[in-house]
């Protein structure tokens, strides 16, 4: 199963600290020799300021060797730097936490700076100390502290680059402390920040300079995609949000161009959200994107088949492109293992299996008129009795309740799906026409009418104008 493990592909797109949980997970799954994982952990820790952790890892790997002496020294160094930085930061924190100041601060950052400078003699350089200290705290693993400092820094600083960096740092800290709500918020702001960055024309042939920001944007989107996996697969509403985000054109493009392996998570999320797509009873309205998620995802999987393929995606492909139920079942049992071993997906293994079965039986029922229960149960990897129960539930839950009947004598399900009456299809076809024609008329009158009398009707027209497809 190691060949389906994505850790190695994903790690380059993660922060050093974000990788620790991944490696910890790997050491549990036994996909790789434990010693190798340990060495990797040690190598990782060596680059941070978490010396005690690194030292303990070292002694685990080499039980018979002394821990190198420079760890001690580095540790002492680190402590002294920490103290120094803390003092600097504390000075500012004292000022900011003063209630007077908190009240005086406004939206405008420049004004705030001026205010702080006038009254408390704080300069931009001093504020930067907040950032440095936050970063330092992060580097030795005090994530919640880091999140705090970075937050304060971001509020005050006007330096674009550092603010962005602080955003990323805050997101990482929130992820590592497990505050998913906060992390989600942070993720959304960061996403806005990335997306709002000067949307440069994508014409590659215009000039050299134009390429760079586009490339940078693609780069940060790729990173964001990977980091967001932590949030989306831990937050309650995460899967839906994941579909919403990843299926938006920009991110779908990002995935297709730079990281097709994310398709596994996209496919899994689509399968997990199946309920949302079939039953519309949930209070939160889902967008059409989420509702049609599976169809969309299947399309993407088909196009990117040459770049990326794993049991999860091939399951969907076999089911919805080839309609080969046997192969789908085979892939499903593989996918089950893959999902179980995946760091992000392990929690959802049962859910995944459940939903995947639903998908199979739904497709199966739609195509077949008479189904042998035993056969269907086999398709679903279930025993006969279990299968029957399952099917009854399925019929009850889904909309085909009226069409399907179980014939226990012959042990088959009969599905009678009456064809769509022609009246229905005529109604469907003519539904939007009236509104569209109205919109046309409004647009016409706006274009022709004299300018003076135009005011009131235009307001109405503006509301409808987007209904006209521009092409």
């Amino acid at each position: 199963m190691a060949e389906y493990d994505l850790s190695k592909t994903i790690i380059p797109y993660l922060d050093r600290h974000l990788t620790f949980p991944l490696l910890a997970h790997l050491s549990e799954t036994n996909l790789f020799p434990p010693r190798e994982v340990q060495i990797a952990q040690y190598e990782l820790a060596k680059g941070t300021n978490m010396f005690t952790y690194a030292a303990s890892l070292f002694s685990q790997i080499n039980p018979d060797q002394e821990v190198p002496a420079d760890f001690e020294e580095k540790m002492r160094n680190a402590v002294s730097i920490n103290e120094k930085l803390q003092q600097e930061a504390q000075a500012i924190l004292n000022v900011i936490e003063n209630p007077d100041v908190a009240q005086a601060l406004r939206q405008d950052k420049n004004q705030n700076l001026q205010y702080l400078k006038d009254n408390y003699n704080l300069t931009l350089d001093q504020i930067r100390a907040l950032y440095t200290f936050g970063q330092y705290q992060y580097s030795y693993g005090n994530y919640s502290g880091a999140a705090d400092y970075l937050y304060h820094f971001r509020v005050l600083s006007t330096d674009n680059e550092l603010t962005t960096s602080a955003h990323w740092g805050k997101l990482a800290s929130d992820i590592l402390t497990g505050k998913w709500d906060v992390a989600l918020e942070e993720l959304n702001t960061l996403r806005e920040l990335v997306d709002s960055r000067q949307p440069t024309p994508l014409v590659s042939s215009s000039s050299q300079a134009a390429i760079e920001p586009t490339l940078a944007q693609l780069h940060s989107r790729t990173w964001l995609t990977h980091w967001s996996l932590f949030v989306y697969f831990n937050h309650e509403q995460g899967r839906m949000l994941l579909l919403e985000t990843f299926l938006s054109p920009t991110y779908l493009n990002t995935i297709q161009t730079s990281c097709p392996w994310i398709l596994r998570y996209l496919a899994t999320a689509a399968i997990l959200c199946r309920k949302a797509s079939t039953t519309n009873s949930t209070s939160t309205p889902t967008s059409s994107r989420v509702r049609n998620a599976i169809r969309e995802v299947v399309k993407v999987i088909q196009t990117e088949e040459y770049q990326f393929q794993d049991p999860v995606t091939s399951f969907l492909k076999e089911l919805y492109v080839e309609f080969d139920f046997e192969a789908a079942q085979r892939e499903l049992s593989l996918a089950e293992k893959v999902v179980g071993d995946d760091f992000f997906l392990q929690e959802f293994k049962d859910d995944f299996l459940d939903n995947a079965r639903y998908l199979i039986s739904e497709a199966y029922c739609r195509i077949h008129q008479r189904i042998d229960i035993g056969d269907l149960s086999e398709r679903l990897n279930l025993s006969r009795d279990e299968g029957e129960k399952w099917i009854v539930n399925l019929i009850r839950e889904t909309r085909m309740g009226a069409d399907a009947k179980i014939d226990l004598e012959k042990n088959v399900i009969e599905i009678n799906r009456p064809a769509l009456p022609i009246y229905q299809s005529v109604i469907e076809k003519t539904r939007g026409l009236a509104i569209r024609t109205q919109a046309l008329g409004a647009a016409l009158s706006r274009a022709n009418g004299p300018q003076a009398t135009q005011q009131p009707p235009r307001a109405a027209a503006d509301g409808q104008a987007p209904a006209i497809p521009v092409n």
Partner: protein
Amino acid sequence: MSRFFRQAGDSDSDSESDEELMSSGDEAPAKPAASTAKPAMSRFLRTAQSDSSSSSSEEESDDSDDSDDEAPQKKRTGLPRASDSESDEESDEEAPVKILSASEKRLAEMEGTGKAMDNALKINDWVAISNEYDKLTRMVQKQSNVSEPIPPFYIRTLSSLETSVNNAQTKEKEAKKKMNATNAKALTAMKQKVKKALKEYEREVKLFQTDPEAFEREFSATVAPEAPAPRAPRKKARDEESGEEDETFQTVGKGGKAMQFTAEGIFKNLQAVQEARGKKNTDRAEQIRILEKLLEVAVTTYQRIRVLLALISSRFDYNSSVASHMPNELWLSAQREVDQLIAIIASDRKYSIEEVVSLEYDELAERTPADEPDGILRVRGSIISFIDRLDDEFTKSLQNIDPHGTEYVERLKDEKVLYCTICRAQEFYEKTNQAEPLGRVIMRRTEHIYSKPDAVVQALEQASEASDIKPNMTLSLQTSTSGLVHALCVHLYKTGNSLLRTRAMLSHIFHHALHNDFYSGRDMLLMSHLQESIHQADVATQILYNRTVVQLGLCAFRCGLIKEAQGTLQDIFTTQRVKELLAQGVHQQRFQVLTPEQEKAERQRQLPFHMHINTELLEAAFLVSSMLVEIPLLASIDSEEQKRKAISKPFRRLLDFADRQVFTGPPESTRDHIMQASKALQDGEWEKCRDLIQDIKIWSLMPEATAVKEMLAKRIQEQGLRTYLFTYAPHYSTLSLALLSRTFSLPLRTVTSIVSKMIWNEELAASLDQSKGVVVFHRIEHSRAQQLALSIADKVSAMVDQNEKTLDLKMGGGATWGDRADGAKGEKRGEQTQERRGRGERTRGARGGARGGRGSRFAQGLGNAQRVG
């Protein structure tokens, strides 16, 4: 015979050593200074000389052959020559060559050409005759230069030619089958020439015609006295034949003995040549000769660079007209000289040739690197333009040579040396860090390899690697051709020149397509967004774009991606001007006549034959994929109106045409095959369809032909099944899956999968009965009123669509005043929708529907090509 050859050779080497003595004597004063440069140069010169002398020796031996053969049958050829008696006698005993006098030799030569003319006359090849005649005239003129009388042979040839020209023309008029254009042209040209010559030698001809014997006697009388003095004229003849330079030097230095070419005078001479350059009456050939001589005496590196620069450009000047191409020998020597120039600069980094030299310098003064401020001597000049010109001339010559002759193949072999030169230039620019010309030279290199199969690229690369000057990127370093092309293209992507980037991108995509890497090619094409801007590009780039798209379509076809292949090739085939768009032939315009300039421009754009993409193969691929897409679709729709909507118009047209035919014979052309196959597919006879398709001969041109045929057979089975289901579903209430699987020899699983897919996509109103293993059809017949209701609903919605489009157009057209009405807001909104739409398009494109919004863009590009064309 062998004795003759040997002896001819002997005497030749004699004379050559003579000449070497002479030339070394010439060079003696310059020798010490030029010692470094000496070997390469003299070698070069010597090869030139030995070339000419060896050719003349061949001629000699040929001649002696002739005389040997002809001697017994003097009557037939009727060539009583002054020297005949002597040479015949002596040729049997001793060395005949020594005895042959200069004039005799000339005579022999003339007879040789005469004979060639006779031969050409027999096969009616007027081009050859014209050439030979020109040669003959030149010889005669030379003859008159040395104040010898006009030989009767010439006069006789002239008069006989006149009659044969007239004969040929009368025959031509009567003949049903015309000769080809070039031949006919040569014939008329010949007629003119003969007429002119006849006028010139009117007196002699008259004399000859009245009394040929007397005329000849008179001639031999004038020539005879010279015969006994073999040594001196021989020498003179040598001079004339081998070193034409000598002769011209005499004419150059009109007053004095000859012009003095010395190291000191080089710059003066150079300047004189350069001043004469471009003037009307300058003899270009002569200039080249002067420069060659100058090169010989050039002493310092600087001098040699200067002379080489001038020499190469004057070689390129030799042909003034744009249409005709450079003679091959000239091209080859220019190529060698460029090589030489690069070698000089590469070996001595103190010298550099740059296009822009800030420092003004005296053209007439000698310079050394030591005098320069930074120790590097910069000379004004441009190697890259030489390379460009060489490459262009090469292409031009290929355009002009008949691609089916051996000459074309011979010429193609020169690509190797050209490629080497380009590689050397690349190395030079790499070392000197000149980014702009480096980009151009790399582009040239890429263009030579991107469309070639691996084996050819390997051969080219081997040649370039054999040289001592190697660029950074070679095949051995990159391991595969794809790697090499990738490296070259990546370098070009990084350059600032957008044209180079575009071309590199297209070449790279072409290369991917050639290597069956459809997905990478498609992704690159879509990501580059070239289809949006290609109609603004120059014609050559548009042609490259068309080629790339077509190649991508072929690649998709080979990979079995029928839909993609059909979609990609569709655009170009709907224009019906495939050949023109690929620059592989001029399209006959029906309603407008091209001006000569346009025609000329069109012809210049044509690709050399070896780069052509076979259009018949292309058409076969397109029609077959259209068949596989279109026939099931045709079967699936039942109402008449829907039928009018076709995916592939050209295919539909052909099919309709085939339908209308009353009798159909056995298929001959590719089209026949495909049309009959389509009909078989419509009738559900997939086996017949498969056989017909596989019988098409043109597949053999496709790499991996057997694999492609197998793929096609499989596709035909599948589409046959679909067509069958669509066509016959109304007549069945159930159909056994096992029967279907047997009929179409597909595994049961595949049949189930195909049927399931059709049910899922709601193409087929049916469902599967698992326990019985049958397909159950639920067909509902609509009543007349219902049908009408449906169609009116369709029509109404189409009308609304149409209305919206019209309004859109109108608003778009009146955007100026519409915008004023609601100001910046409307504008902004417009921008947003634009962006939204753009994004949507992008994703649609990226998602792989190669059709998407691309068709219209592409059509624009094509339209533009037409306008320019």
